[in-house]
């Protein structure tokens, strides 16, 4: 289930600003309260896939350690995709929440 939302998770982690792969993983851990334990290596194929889809852009920078690292950032298309994903998730979450709580969804006839 988590894998199906990986793209949205990565986009959400990058919504704070540009970051390299390790920082993206740390951001996911921090924002999720350490809830997700993904194999860290699976983030990189997702980053590449999102970049190919035009949702991210990346560039090489030189870190303080002297190592070259790839920094990713959201594109406008990526921001729009994240906003749409958030809206869909909120609807889904509200519907599931209502279902599990045994109440009827809002706005539906009785």
């Amino acid at each position, binding site marked *: 289930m988590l894998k199906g939302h990986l793209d949205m998770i990565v986009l959400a982690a990058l919504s704070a600003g540009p970051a*390299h*792969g*390790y920082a993206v*993983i740390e951001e996911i851990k921090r924002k999720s309260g350490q809830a997700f334990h993904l*194999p*860290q*290596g*699976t983030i*990189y*194929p997702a980053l*590449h*896939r999102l970049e*190919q889809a035009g949702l991210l852009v990346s560039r090489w920078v030189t*870190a303080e*350690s002297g*190592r*070259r*690292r*790839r920094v990713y950032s959201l594109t406008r298309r990526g921001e729009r995709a994240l906003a749409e994903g958030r809206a869909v998730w909120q609807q889904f979450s509200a519907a599931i929440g209502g279902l599990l709580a045994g109440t009827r969804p809002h706005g539906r006839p009785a």
Partner: protein
Amino acid sequence: MISDYLDSLVGALSFDRPLSGRVRQEVEDHLREAVAADPAGDGPEAERRAIANFGDPRVIAAEFAMVSLAKQTRRVGAAIILVIAGVRIFRLRAAGLWISGLLRIPRLLQSSGLWIPRLLGTASLSLRGLRIAKQLGIPCLLQTPGLCAAKRLGTAPLPRWFGLWISEPAALFSVLRFRFRRSGRWLFRRSPFGELVAWGRVRDRAC
């Protein structure tokens, strides 16, 4: 340990050399940073943990294979579309050139007043008519209707300069020849085309 892990990952990504080079740099940076951030320090144990957290290189390579396949599919698809478009454009262009070439023939003939086919046709008709007339012993004046028809096919729509510099002199010469022939003397060499035009001019003037 990290180098061995990177080598195995790059080996698993050998299907896409540019991708494997980029991934190696990215993953090396990740693992070095993970080791540096490990509370236990940067020893072999921290490296082992970083590698374990990163995952099996074959599993990661399999996920990258999907990314690479999608990229190459897009490239091949774009190449196929370009090739198909190129072939179609070439075919359309070739067809267009062929059609325009065909269209150019009547246009050229039209722009030249169709004088080439008309001249050939009228020359042929006049020669044939003259031969028949000669065989039948028909006087030249009686050839006029046939020659006039030939002339109508040929020389009537020709440009003005043609009439001025060719038709009229030819008519004059032919009439003179006719006169001289009637008198039993040949002044000019036989000229079927001139004769044709001459009879046409005679008819035009007479009618």
